[in-house]
């Protein structure tokens, strides 16, 4: 049996009528698309709705994927524009202060009760919670760079900006992430440095 493994092979076969093969592409990229959607909204249901929209749009326009970029880059471009349209429709605040506020209140209640003692934190939890405190733009660019396997040029194409601007935005996003971690997870950051 001829198993299509690359994105291009799967797309070619879907375009020739093997529509069920599209599920393989969905499986491959669903987590990343959903994660990007979660950068724009704290509600899982909304993020799932956005992610589903992305895959439906990608399916409808599959014939327009020319193969001059990676399928992931093309898909993430649709993800980015869909997320932005969703925000415009719902007029949601991009940056949620809820998470930060929780830690501020905890700090104020007891000076010895540090924010990083609210729950047991692993490094992974710390990093991912810090990312959730960032703006959608910052969280998105960090996710594209570290998990999306996209180069600066590809991220620039996804976001519709110059690669040099991507570099500057990435640099600032990392600075802000570092500040968030130092502010809210001081103990963990100290342990990592030691």
């Amino acid at each position, binding site marked *: 049996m001829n198993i299509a493994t690359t994105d291009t092979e799967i797309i070619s076969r879907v375009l020739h009528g093997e529509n*069920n093969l*599209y599920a393989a592409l969905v499986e491959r990229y669903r987590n990343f698309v*959903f994660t990007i959607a979660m950068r724009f909204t704290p509600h899982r249901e909304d993020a799932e709705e956005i992610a589903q929209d992305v895959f*439906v*749009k990608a*399916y409808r326009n599959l014939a*327009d994927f020319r193969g001059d970029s990676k399928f992931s880059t093309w898909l993430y471009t649709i993800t980015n524009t869909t997320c932005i349209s969703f925000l415009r429709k719902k007029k949601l605040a991009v940056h949620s202060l809820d998470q930060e506020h929780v830690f501020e209140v905890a700090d104020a209640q007891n000076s010895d009760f540090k924010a990083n003692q609210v729950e047991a934190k692993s490094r992974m939890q710390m990093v991912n919670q810090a*990312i959730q405190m960032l703006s959608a733009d910052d969280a998105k660019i960090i996710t594209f760079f570290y998990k999306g396997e996209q180069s600066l040029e590809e991220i620039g194409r996804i976001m519709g900006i110059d690669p040099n601007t991507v570099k500057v935005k990435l*640099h600032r996003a*990392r600075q802000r992430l570092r500040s968030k971690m130092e502010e809210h997870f001081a103990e963990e950051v100290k342990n990592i440095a030691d």
Partner: protein
Amino acid sequence: MEERLWDYIDGFSSEEEKSFIAQLIETNLEWRRKYHELLDVHQLMQQNIELDEPSMRFTQNVMELVANEKIAPAASSYIKKSVIRVIGGFFILSISAVLIWALANVNWSAPDTGKSLDLPKVDLSKYLSPTVINGMIIATVVMALMLLDMTLRKKQKRNREMTE
């Protein structure tokens, strides 16, 4: 300093810059401290950013939705650049012909000086009967409408992608 160190860590520095930074890290305490600080953050992110997962039914939901969808034909199949070039060329030729005819029939004389510029008179009346002129007008209008249709289709497609 931070920007240069980030470029170094990310592998964006040139070979020259790379060896210069490596030397600075080796010899300068401040650079070395900053480098390790940024490298720790970089490694933290590299190793610890995790992806969220949607519900178990996600793929099934998507496949149920796409079962009712059709894959649109590629935009390039109905927006041919060669057709646009031919239509554009026709417009340019028509406008040029009208301009040449208009300029040739202008009276280029300066009454005060008595000087005049004699251009060859272009008499198109033997070629341009009312039928020919009407035909050209109709052809121009039809091609303009075709061009407008192609442009609006492309815009509509783009808007649909952005707003749906």
